[in-house]
């Protein structure tokens, strides 16, 4: 009985510390001008708002992460960015696992909400409309971009087909960062 009590007490402490850490980090970041590595921040305030012609998003080819704010919730997160055919896209993986959906809840929010977003790259903010792309040949370019930037850089037809299959099965969600109409 004593051994069980000690085990349960130790288990409680092992769960308590990560829970306190997560709660503290979440609260600490919630109102910041931008996210931290793992926790959402608040509304993106600093940076000039881009006004003018639609950019050619190929310039994001060398950029690893961008900051994305969902207007509905006013929360922002750090996210990978892909470009294909001059357009920009973002991906959310692990969408079929419990932890994945918990971690990537923003994607559910974007899909079910208005999809209005603000993207910040460096010191420039871009007003965007997130549009989920479920299927289609457009995904080949996005898959190639994912492979090139985040999966070792080797782009093969098999690799593209595998990533596209993940997207079309719903395991990875892709959103186009379209201009607001």
């Amino acid at each position, binding site marked *: 009985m004593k051994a069980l009590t000690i085990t349960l007490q130790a288990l*409680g402490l092992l769960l308590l510390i990560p829970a306190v*850490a997560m709660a*503290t980090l979440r609260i600490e970041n919630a109102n910041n001008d931008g996210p931290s590595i793992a926790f959402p921040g608040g509304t993106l305030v600093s940076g000039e708002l881009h006004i003018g012609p639609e950019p050619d998003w190929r310039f994001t080819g060398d950029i690893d992460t961008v900051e994305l704010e969902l207007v509905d919730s006013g929360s922002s997160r750090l996210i990978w960015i892909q470009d294909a055919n001059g357009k920009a896209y973002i991906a959310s993986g692990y969408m079929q696992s419990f932890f994945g959906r918990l971690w990537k809840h923003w994607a559910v929010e974007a899909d079910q909400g208005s999809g209005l977003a603000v993207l910040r790259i460096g010191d420039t903010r871009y007003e965007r409309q997130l549009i989920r792309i479920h299927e289609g040949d457009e995904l080949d370019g996005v898959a190639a971009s994912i492979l090139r930037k985040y999966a070792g850089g080797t782009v093969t037809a098999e690799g593209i087909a595998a990533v596209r299959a993940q997207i079309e099965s719903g395991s990875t969600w892709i959103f186009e960062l379209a201009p607001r109409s």
Partner: protein
Amino acid sequence: MSLKNYLLLCAGLSLATAVSILLVPGVAQLFETLILGFLFVFAN
């Protein structure tokens, strides 16, 4: 350990964790890296 002492230990550790994250440089980043590592493994 009595329940009272255990709860005091929990409270102390919680406070120490929160304060170190808020005030000690690098601790927040360490916890974030650990949490990200956990998510990358278990979200799969």
